[in-house]
């Protein structure tokens, strides 16, 4: 194993074990799984497409909530306990540490939510009945690909959220600020940025690029469900890339100057 990859993998493994090894991690996983499976059970008779649409509303709230719950203290606590300084002294580069945290947080959140969605797909497969006539106009109703795409896009969205949460965790100075910041971040991601479109008329591609949540909704409705074929998919992907890379670089920059 190379000297570059070994510290990175060590940081990733530590993040994963932090979730698996704590009651809080299991509580978050249990709560998220219960919510997803409850919606999936209720919607399953309507088929894959309807279940994906019903789950979308839940996931727009659940993904930011899980991402914030798992990660809002990750960098902060390491800084307050002096563990980040120990990493620096050992020679771990800020980029290695940030990428390790990001991959670990994304994997943990992705396993929790992606795993729940995978079980939900099985529930739909077992419980779905004949498609209702007005929905049967699109082939996605009976196509399990809708749930597969939903799962893949949702896991990707957890990565974007993890990067944004890491910026919060690296910028705040104390626990109180972290909790307050976590509430603000969830609010902004779920409704705040979308609300701009209500207050200030904003062209759809701009809104989709600005708001990770709007981008997620656009991608699911277009790629997974196939309801909005003309939606600005390119703007959504560009927005995600900008948030992911910008937030990651900001965290690295912050940790370069912090003991």
């Amino acid at each position, binding site marked *: 194993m190379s000297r570059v990859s070994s510290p990175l993998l060590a940081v990733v493994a530590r993040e994963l074990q932090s979730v698996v090894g704590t009651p809080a991690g299991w509580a978050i996983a249990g709560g998220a799984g219960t919510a997803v499976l409850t919606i999936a059970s209720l919607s399953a008779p309507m088929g894959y497409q309807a279940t994906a649409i019903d789950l979308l509303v839940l996931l727009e709230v659940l993904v930011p909530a899980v991402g914030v719950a798992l990660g809002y203290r990750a960098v902060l606590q390491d800084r307050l306990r002096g563990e980040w*300084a*120990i990493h620096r002294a050992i020679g771990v580069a800020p980029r290695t540490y940030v990428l390790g945290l990001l991959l670990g947080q994304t994997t943990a959140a992705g396993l929790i939510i992606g795993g729940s969605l995978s079980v939900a797909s099985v529930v739909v497969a077992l419980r779905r009945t004949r498609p209702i006539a007005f929905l049967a106009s699109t082939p996605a109703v009976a196509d399990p690909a809708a749930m597969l795409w939903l799962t893949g896009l949702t896991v990707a969205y957890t990565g974007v959220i993890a990067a944004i949460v890491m910026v919060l965790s690296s910028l705040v100075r104390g626990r109180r600020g972290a909790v307050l910041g976590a509430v603000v971040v969830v609010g902004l991601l779920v409704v705040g940025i979308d609300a701009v479109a209500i207050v200030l008329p904003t062209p759809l591609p701009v809104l989709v690029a600005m708001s990770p949540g709007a981008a997620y909704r656009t991608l699911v409705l277009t790629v997974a469900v196939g309801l909005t074929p003309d939606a600005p998919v390119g703007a959504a992907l560009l927005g995600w890339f900008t948030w992911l890379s910008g937030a990651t670089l900001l965290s690295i920059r912050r940790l370069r100057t912090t003991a």
Partner: protein
Amino acid sequence: MTVDAISASALTLVRGGRVLCSGCDVSVPVGKCVVIVGPNGSGKTTLLEVLGGLRDPTAGRVDHLVDPPFGYLPQRPGFRRGFSVAETLGYYRRLTGSRAGPPVSRLLERVGLSGRAEDPIGGLSGGMTRLFALAVALVGDPAVLLLDEPMSGLDPQMRDSIIALLAAERDRGRTVIVVTHALEAVDPIADWGVVMGGGAMVQAGSVADLMARTASEGLPGAYRGLLEETA
């Protein structure tokens, strides 16, 4: 002739709007025990962090003439819950890659924590957590040890054992930089002193030079003498 492990020149440190030192030069010789002393809030921890490359100076330059890993013991160490003592130490060993140094059992033995390997990290007392943090600082067999109050909260017997450990590291050619208020405890192993106080660095040099300058015996006497000079 001494060879430096760390060399800082024209160093200015400002923390919370307060100038801790201005235009100072500090050299840390290889294989010596350097003690940073001063009153509370004089900037000892900030200087340690800057010398270790953990924090950038406000102005000036710090050159590391030896390669990482460095070992660092924070002033108030703590570790992630949900892991055992051995798992946490194993994690830090993995971070050092091929230079992992002594095994976990040997590291725990050196700091008096043999038999605690499977204990949950959150179950250690404050003193034990400090000892464990010292074991983490020794991971990777670092050329430089940066220790912030390593004796704080330890009983006298354990203090003596830590002093013996630091002396052994220095005698192996490792550079040991210690921030401490326990001047009497570190006096037997202190080779070099950096005395902070009064909003600026007061003096830096070999303990012998500091004692000669203040006509005093030992590091505690030199420290008091230097502070009286600037009062």
